[in-house]
């Protein structure tokens, strides 16, 4: 009986007029259309335009620019010493910032995880740097490092870290530490809060069992806390690395890439090319290279993570 029903229905469907069939195919797309249009307009158009700039000669001050130049920008990039220096600076800046943020964030999270009077207030205060606009944070730190108005150089001299009060932002050999310190100050809350949340989800009786088994606090940290935190650390470090590598605000505000390009990172180099030299084409090419590098980095991390969690099973 079901056969006969099928035979009835099937030919019927094929006999419908073309217009109806087309309409039924298009219909779901029409429902999705508003969202699709917005996504394309907001995400794809700028992305495609930006990528296309990398292959065109776009200089705001040159009315004759705009032509297609193929891979010329990338060839120029291959010869650009400033770019390679910026790449090395980026590695240093990103590595040091993320590592120190993670280290201090973890220590802060461990401290906040111990009950003490006023813990709620302390937890709220830890959030504060996160709420300060980066622009303001950069200016603040630039002033703190300035021996004319800021106290830090005088303190460091008093502690014997410096021969005389001077501005570390002006000393090419250590200028990078200025923005790194500001970035660490600004980024610690992110790690502290996420790691604290992860710490609080660890069952207390595991530590009790371990202390009965004879584990010292350090052994408990290694065999219980770290394994629990590992996935959170992996994903936050991944996110932060991409974010810090792309992060030019503090450097632009504090040193503008100087002195002698010693604090120029790829991100601030892009900013300088685009908004100081007004060479959007070249800036886009640099940005595209940075994008490719960060994508490659993310892929490596994700594959590693997958491997590790596979081994776990």
């Amino acid at each position, binding site marked *: 009986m079901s056969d006969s029903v099928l035979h009835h229905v099937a030919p019927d469907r094929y006999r419908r007029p073309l217009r109806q069939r087309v309409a039924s195919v298009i219909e779901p797309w029409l429902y999705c259309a508003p969202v699709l249009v917005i996504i394309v307009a907001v995400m794809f158009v700028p992305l495609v335009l930006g990528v296309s700039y990398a292959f065109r000669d776009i200089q705001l001050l040159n009315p004759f620019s705009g032509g297609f130049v193929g891979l010329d920008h990338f060839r120029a990039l291959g010869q650009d010493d400033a770019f390679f220096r910026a790449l090395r600076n980026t590695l240093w800046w990103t590595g040091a910032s993320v590592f120190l943020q993670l280290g201090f964030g973890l220590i802060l999270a461990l401290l906040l995880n111990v009950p003490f009077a006023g813990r709620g207030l302390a937890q709220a205060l830890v959030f504060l740097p996160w709420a300060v606009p980066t622009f303001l944070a950069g200016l603040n730190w630039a002033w703190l490092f300035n021996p004319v108005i800021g106290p830090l150089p005088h303190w460091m001299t008093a502690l014997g870290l410096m021969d005389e009060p001077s501005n570390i932002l002006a000393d090419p050999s250590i200028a990078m530490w200025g923005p790194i310190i500001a970035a660490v100050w600004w980024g610690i809350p992110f790690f502290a809060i996420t790691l604290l949340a992860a710490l609080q989800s660890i069952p207390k009786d*595991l530590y*009790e*069992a371990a*202390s*009965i*088994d004879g584990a010292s606090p350090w052994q408990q940290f290694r*065999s219980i806390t770290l*394994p629990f935190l590992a996935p959170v650390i992996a994903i936050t470090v991944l996110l932060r690395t991409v974010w810090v590598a792309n992060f030019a605000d503090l450097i632009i505000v504090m040193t503008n890439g100087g002195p002698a390009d010693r604090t120029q990172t790829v991100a601030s180099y892009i900013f300088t090319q685009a908004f100081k030299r007004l060479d959007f084409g070249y800036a886009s090419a640099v940005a595209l290279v940075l994008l490719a590098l960060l994508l490659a980095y993310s892929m490596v991390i994700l594959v590693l993570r997958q491997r590790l969690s596979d081994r*776990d*099973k």
Partner: protein
Amino acid sequence: MATMEIRSARKTYGTLCVLEDINLSIGDGEFIVLVGPSGCGKSTLLRMIAGLEEISAGEIRIEDRVVNDLPPKARDIAMVFQSYALYPHMNVADNMSYSLRLRKADKPTIADKVRDASAKLGLGALLERKPKALSGGQRQRVAMGRAIVRQPKAFLFDEPLSNLDARLREQMRAEIRKLHRALGATSIYVTHDQVEAMTLADRIVAMHGGHIQQVGTPLELYDRPANLFVAGFIGSPGMNFVEGAVELGTFVMRDGTRLPLPEGMPETLGGATLGIRPEHVTLGEGLAAEVELVEPTGHGIILHLRLAGAVFRVLTTDRRWLTPGDQVQVGLPAGALHLFDESEQRVAPAPHPQQ
């Protein structure tokens, strides 16, 4: 294996007193069960022995050594937690050998002990698994294995079976008992389940409201409960109570019903409570009662009767066809009666049940 001695131990949280004047001596190799309703302080006492909670006052000794200020690892005890507290990132073998590895035991010794313990507990095939790949019963065994490999002076258990289903609980209960007989180690076992307490214990410590109510063998607590709380807590279904007074050697219930008391009971006592276990009430001749509810248990039936204004439970293996509303006659044998005074303490010499 060790003896333990708890002297005038107290536990306070701020102004809240959770345990008061706890005194207990535990013999070498004894199996002690701390039993009482939820919140009575059993876990707190166990954790004080383990070193996980500070001892506010008094003294705890393990083998004549005061351990008040010793950290858990210096007390040489092992604990099985209600949640099992297995290390989730280690496999079964690593979980069991963790304490040995911390003490830098050599590899062959560790392997030997883990093999022994896993054989005792039937975990041989699971040694490579992570805890999350185990069933509740298997996790429970791993938690026991972790305690066994250490060969500690004493085992502490905090409601280790309460997350298992009834059948498994029965089975593990028997295994714990067998294990204790094989290892002979001093054990302290916390439970709120009086059946577990009765079946496992050498001696039961009944607790209520932060005080020890009675210490004794399971049958002592069952036959001669020291007060109303123990009488009501031990045994299932619970003991029946009627309030009244003793006059001229007979018990007079509130509604005037009179009941003869056995020899040796006081002649007069105002404000007394009479107790009798449901299994000691006889059906047949005696006081008139009305059936209110019939609960078949398979093994027998539990009758809820209204007798002299109170609800009475009767446990009988007699499969009599009774329905609510039926009139029956019940006998309360004098030898099975328990009498408690106004302050809820047992009075009179120990009557022995006749059946």
